Protein backbone atom coordinates (compact mmCIF):
# COMPACT_ATOMS: atom_id res chain seq x y z
CA UNK A 1 0.00 0.00 0.00
CA UNK A 2 1.40 3.34 -1.00
CA UNK A 3 1.01 6.30 1.31
CA UNK A 4 1.62 9.99 0.87
CA UNK A 5 4.87 11.16 2.31
CA UNK A 6 4.68 14.82 3.26
CA UNK A 7 8.43 15.15 3.61
CA UNK A 8 8.98 13.78 0.13
CA UNK A 9 6.33 16.06 -1.30
CA UNK A 10 7.98 19.08 0.27
CA UNK A 11 11.33 18.00 -1.16
CA UNK A 12 9.75 17.72 -4.61
CA UNK A 13 8.26 21.19 -4.24
CA UNK A 14 11.58 22.73 -3.20
CA UNK A 15 13.55 21.01 -5.96
CA UNK A 16 10.96 21.91 -8.58
CA UNK A 17 11.09 25.58 -7.60
CA UNK A 18 14.86 25.49 -7.67
CA UNK A 19 14.95 23.85 -11.08
CA UNK A 20 12.38 26.19 -12.64
CA UNK A 21 14.26 29.25 -11.39
CA UNK A 22 17.65 27.93 -12.49
CA UNK A 23 16.81 26.29 -15.82
CA UNK A 24 13.48 27.85 -16.80
CA UNK A 25 10.63 25.99 -18.44
CA UNK A 26 12.69 24.44 -21.19
CA UNK A 27 15.22 22.91 -18.84
CA UNK A 28 12.56 21.45 -16.59
CA UNK A 29 11.56 17.81 -16.89
CA UNK A 30 9.89 15.25 -14.67
CA UNK A 31 12.83 12.92 -15.21
CA UNK A 32 15.41 15.43 -14.09
CA UNK A 33 13.26 16.45 -11.16
CA UNK A 34 12.90 12.85 -9.99
CA UNK A 35 16.65 12.43 -10.26
CA UNK A 36 17.33 15.62 -8.29
CA UNK A 37 14.98 14.43 -5.55
CA UNK A 38 16.41 10.93 -5.48
CA UNK A 39 13.00 9.39 -6.11
CA UNK A 40 11.66 7.31 -8.97
CA UNK A 41 9.85 8.90 -11.89
CA UNK A 42 6.86 6.75 -11.02
CA UNK A 43 6.63 8.26 -7.54
CA UNK A 44 6.61 11.72 -9.05
CA UNK A 45 3.79 10.77 -11.40
CA UNK A 46 1.82 9.34 -8.52
CA UNK A 47 1.83 12.75 -6.85
CA UNK A 48 1.31 14.78 -10.02
CA UNK A 49 -0.59 13.83 -13.16
CA UNK A 50 1.99 15.37 -15.49
CA UNK A 51 4.38 18.28 -15.84
CA UNK A 52 1.57 20.80 -16.35
CA UNK A 53 -0.24 19.56 -13.26
CA UNK A 54 2.91 19.89 -11.18
CA UNK A 55 3.67 23.40 -12.39
CA UNK A 56 0.09 24.54 -11.87
CA UNK A 57 -0.09 23.13 -8.38
CA UNK A 58 3.21 24.66 -7.34
CA UNK A 59 2.22 28.01 -8.80
CA UNK A 60 -1.15 27.96 -7.06
CA UNK A 61 0.49 27.08 -3.77
CA UNK A 62 2.98 29.94 -3.97
CA UNK A 63 0.10 32.26 -4.92
CA UNK A 64 -1.83 31.26 -1.82
CA UNK A 65 1.23 31.63 0.38
CA UNK A 66 1.84 35.11 -1.05
CA UNK A 67 -1.79 36.10 -0.59
CA UNK A 68 -1.90 34.95 3.03
CA UNK A 69 1.25 36.89 3.87
CA UNK A 70 0.16 40.01 2.01
CA UNK A 71 -3.22 40.15 3.73
CA UNK A 72 -1.78 39.59 7.18
CA UNK A 73 -3.00 42.34 9.58
CA UNK A 74 -4.47 44.13 6.60
CA UNK A 75 -8.02 45.40 6.35
CA UNK A 76 -9.52 47.10 3.27
CA UNK A 77 -11.20 49.55 5.66
CA UNK A 78 -7.82 50.89 6.79
CA UNK A 79 -6.88 54.44 5.85
CA UNK A 80 -5.03 54.56 2.54
CA UNK A 81 -1.69 55.52 4.11
CA UNK A 82 -1.90 52.84 6.77
CA UNK A 83 -3.12 50.12 4.40
CA UNK A 84 -0.58 50.80 1.69
CA UNK A 85 2.19 50.86 4.30
CA UNK A 86 1.07 47.46 5.56
CA UNK A 87 1.08 46.18 1.97
CA UNK A 88 4.64 47.37 1.50
CA UNK A 89 5.79 45.76 4.73
CA UNK A 90 4.08 42.46 3.98
CA UNK A 91 5.21 42.29 0.36
CA UNK A 92 8.78 43.19 1.29
CA UNK A 93 8.83 40.58 4.06
CA UNK A 94 7.59 37.87 1.68
CA UNK A 95 10.02 38.76 -1.11
CA UNK A 96 12.99 38.82 1.26
CA UNK A 97 12.05 35.58 2.99
CA UNK A 98 11.09 33.64 -0.16
CA UNK A 99 13.12 35.01 -3.09
CA UNK A 100 13.07 31.69 -4.97
CA UNK A 101 9.33 31.30 -4.63
CA UNK A 102 8.84 34.83 -5.95
CA UNK A 103 11.14 34.21 -8.93
CA UNK A 104 9.41 30.90 -9.66
CA UNK A 105 5.96 32.46 -9.41
CA UNK A 106 6.99 35.13 -11.91
CA UNK A 107 8.22 32.48 -14.35
CA UNK A 108 4.99 30.52 -14.06
CA UNK A 109 2.82 33.63 -14.20
CA UNK A 110 4.37 34.68 -17.50
CA UNK A 111 3.92 31.23 -19.01
CA UNK A 112 0.82 29.72 -20.56
CA UNK A 113 -0.19 28.53 -17.10
CA UNK A 114 -0.25 32.08 -15.81
CA UNK A 115 -3.86 33.07 -16.28
CA UNK A 116 -5.28 29.97 -14.63
CA UNK A 117 -3.05 30.34 -11.62
CA UNK A 118 -3.71 34.00 -11.11
CA UNK A 119 -7.45 33.38 -11.47
CA UNK A 120 -7.43 30.45 -9.10
CA UNK A 121 -5.14 31.56 -6.33
CA UNK A 122 -5.81 35.27 -6.18
CA UNK A 123 -9.59 35.39 -6.37
CA UNK A 124 -10.29 36.70 -2.86
CA UNK A 125 -7.15 38.78 -2.90
CA UNK A 126 -8.20 40.82 -5.92
CA UNK A 127 -11.54 41.65 -4.32
CA UNK A 128 -9.92 42.80 -1.06
CA UNK A 129 -7.40 44.99 -2.86
CA UNK A 130 -10.16 46.36 -5.11
CA UNK A 131 -12.23 47.30 -2.07
CA UNK A 132 -9.23 48.97 -0.49
CA UNK A 133 -8.51 51.28 -3.44
CA UNK A 134 -12.21 51.93 -3.96
CA UNK A 135 -12.57 53.07 -0.33
CA UNK A 136 -9.48 55.22 -0.64
CA UNK A 137 -10.84 56.99 -3.73
CA UNK A 138 -14.28 57.50 -2.12
CA UNK A 139 -12.60 58.96 0.99
CA UNK A 140 -10.52 61.24 -1.23
CA UNK A 141 -7.27 59.73 0.05
CA UNK A 142 -6.25 58.50 -3.38
CA UNK A 143 -6.33 60.15 -6.81
CA UNK A 144 -8.78 58.37 -9.14
CA UNK A 145 -6.13 57.21 -11.64
CA UNK A 146 -6.40 54.17 -13.97
CA UNK A 147 -5.49 50.91 -12.27
CA UNK A 148 -2.22 50.51 -14.23
CA UNK A 149 -1.12 53.99 -13.18
CA UNK A 150 -2.06 53.20 -9.59
CA UNK A 151 -0.25 49.87 -9.50
CA UNK A 152 2.96 51.08 -11.12
CA UNK A 153 3.12 54.09 -8.81
CA UNK A 154 2.02 52.30 -5.65
CA UNK A 155 4.15 49.15 -5.93
CA UNK A 156 6.62 49.72 -8.78
CA UNK A 157 9.15 51.57 -6.59
CA UNK A 158 8.96 48.90 -3.89
CA UNK A 159 9.58 46.07 -6.34
CA UNK A 160 12.48 47.97 -7.89
CA UNK A 161 14.12 48.28 -4.47
CA UNK A 162 13.46 44.59 -3.77
CA UNK A 163 15.03 43.66 -7.10
CA UNK A 164 18.13 45.70 -6.23
CA UNK A 165 18.22 43.91 -2.89
CA UNK A 166 17.89 40.49 -4.51
CA UNK A 167 20.75 41.32 -6.89
CA UNK A 168 22.76 42.86 -4.07
CA UNK A 169 23.45 45.92 -6.19
CA UNK A 170 21.67 48.88 -7.69
CA UNK A 171 22.38 51.25 -10.57
CA UNK A 172 25.96 51.05 -11.86
CA UNK A 173 26.73 48.07 -9.61
CA UNK A 174 26.51 50.04 -6.37
CA UNK A 175 26.15 47.64 -3.44
CA UNK A 176 22.60 47.72 -2.10
CA UNK A 177 20.74 46.33 0.85
CA UNK A 178 17.04 46.90 1.48
CA UNK A 179 16.30 48.57 4.80
CA UNK A 180 13.35 49.96 6.74
CA UNK A 181 14.79 53.44 6.39
CA UNK A 182 15.02 53.26 2.62
CA UNK A 183 11.56 51.76 2.42
CA UNK A 184 10.12 54.53 4.57
CA UNK A 185 11.77 57.26 2.54
CA UNK A 186 10.48 55.84 -0.74
CA UNK A 187 7.06 55.14 0.72
CA UNK A 188 6.56 58.76 1.78
CA UNK A 189 7.29 59.96 -1.76
CA UNK A 190 4.90 57.42 -3.23
CA UNK A 191 2.19 58.42 -0.80
CA UNK A 192 2.65 62.07 -1.66
CA UNK A 193 2.35 61.38 -5.38
CA UNK A 194 -0.89 59.40 -5.04
CA UNK A 195 -2.68 61.67 -2.58
CA UNK A 196 -5.02 64.39 -3.91
Amino acid sequence: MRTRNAEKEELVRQEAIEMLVRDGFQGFSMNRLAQACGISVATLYIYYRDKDDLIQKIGAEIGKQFMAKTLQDFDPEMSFAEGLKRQWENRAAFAIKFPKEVACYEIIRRSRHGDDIVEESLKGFKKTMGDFTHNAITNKELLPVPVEVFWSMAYGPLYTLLRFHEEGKSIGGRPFKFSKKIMEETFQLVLKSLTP
Partner: protein
Amino acid sequence: MTIDLSNIFIFKTNIQTEFDKLRIKNVLDASQKVLKWNIDMDDADRVLRIVSDSLRPEQIISVLDYVGFECTELE
Protein backbone atom coordinates in the same frame (compact mmCIF):
# COMPACT_ATOMS: atom_id res chain seq x y z
CA MET B 1 -12.22 12.85 -4.80
CA THR B 2 -9.21 11.36 -3.05
CA ILE B 3 -7.46 8.61 -4.91
CA ASP B 4 -5.94 5.62 -3.20
CA LEU B 5 -2.32 5.88 -4.29
CA SER B 6 -2.14 2.10 -4.65
CA ASN B 7 -4.60 2.41 -7.52
CA ILE B 8 -2.30 4.59 -9.60
CA PHE B 9 -0.16 2.84 -12.21
CA ILE B 10 2.67 4.49 -14.06
CA PHE B 11 4.04 3.24 -17.39
CA LYS B 12 6.70 4.20 -19.85
CA THR B 13 5.29 3.91 -23.39
CA ASN B 14 6.25 4.42 -27.02
CA ILE B 15 3.27 6.60 -27.81
CA GLN B 16 4.54 9.21 -30.24
CA THR B 17 1.85 11.28 -31.87
CA GLU B 18 -1.52 12.78 -31.10
CA PHE B 19 -2.95 10.12 -33.40
CA ASP B 20 -1.39 7.39 -31.24
CA LYS B 21 -2.92 9.05 -28.25
CA LEU B 22 -6.31 9.02 -29.91
CA ARG B 23 -6.07 5.29 -30.55
CA ILE B 24 -5.29 4.69 -26.91
CA LYS B 25 -8.03 7.05 -25.85
CA ASN B 26 -10.62 4.95 -27.67
CA VAL B 27 -9.58 1.85 -25.77
CA LEU B 28 -9.14 3.40 -22.34
CA ASP B 29 -12.27 5.52 -22.46
CA ALA B 30 -14.26 2.42 -23.34
CA SER B 31 -13.12 0.54 -20.25
CA GLN B 32 -15.19 1.15 -17.15
CA LYS B 33 -12.36 -0.22 -15.08
CA VAL B 34 -10.17 2.74 -16.00
CA LEU B 35 -11.28 5.52 -13.68
CA LYS B 36 -8.85 8.14 -14.96
CA TRP B 37 -5.93 8.25 -17.32
CA ASN B 38 -3.54 10.67 -18.95
CA ILE B 39 -0.35 10.68 -20.97
CA ASP B 40 2.39 13.22 -20.43
CA MET B 41 3.21 14.05 -24.05
CA ASP B 42 5.84 16.53 -22.81
CA ASP B 43 7.93 13.73 -21.36
CA ALA B 44 10.44 11.72 -23.36
CA ASP B 45 9.05 8.51 -21.82
CA ARG B 46 5.48 9.46 -22.75
CA VAL B 47 4.44 8.46 -19.28
CA LEU B 48 0.99 6.92 -19.09
CA ARG B 49 -0.79 7.28 -15.76
CA ILE B 50 -3.79 5.14 -15.05
CA VAL B 51 -6.11 5.12 -12.07
CA SER B 52 -8.01 1.88 -11.60
CA ASP B 53 -9.25 0.01 -8.55
CA SER B 54 -9.66 -3.30 -10.34
CA LEU B 55 -7.07 -3.65 -13.10
CA ARG B 56 -3.65 -5.15 -12.58
CA PRO B 57 -0.65 -3.62 -14.38
CA GLU B 58 -0.24 -6.73 -16.55
CA GLN B 59 -3.77 -6.31 -17.85
CA ILE B 60 -3.10 -2.70 -18.79
CA ILE B 61 0.11 -3.74 -20.54
CA SER B 62 -1.73 -6.37 -22.59
CA VAL B 63 -4.43 -3.89 -23.61
CA LEU B 64 -1.75 -1.51 -24.87
CA ASP B 65 0.02 -4.39 -26.55
CA TYR B 66 -3.25 -5.35 -28.26
CA VAL B 67 -3.48 -1.90 -29.92
CA GLY B 68 0.20 -2.06 -30.83
CA PHE B 69 2.07 -0.06 -28.22
CA GLU B 70 4.95 -0.95 -25.99
CA CYS B 71 4.35 -0.28 -22.36
CA THR B 72 6.50 -0.98 -19.30
CA GLU B 73 5.52 -0.36 -15.73
CA LEU B 74 7.68 2.16 -13.87
CA GLU B 75 8.19 1.51 -10.19
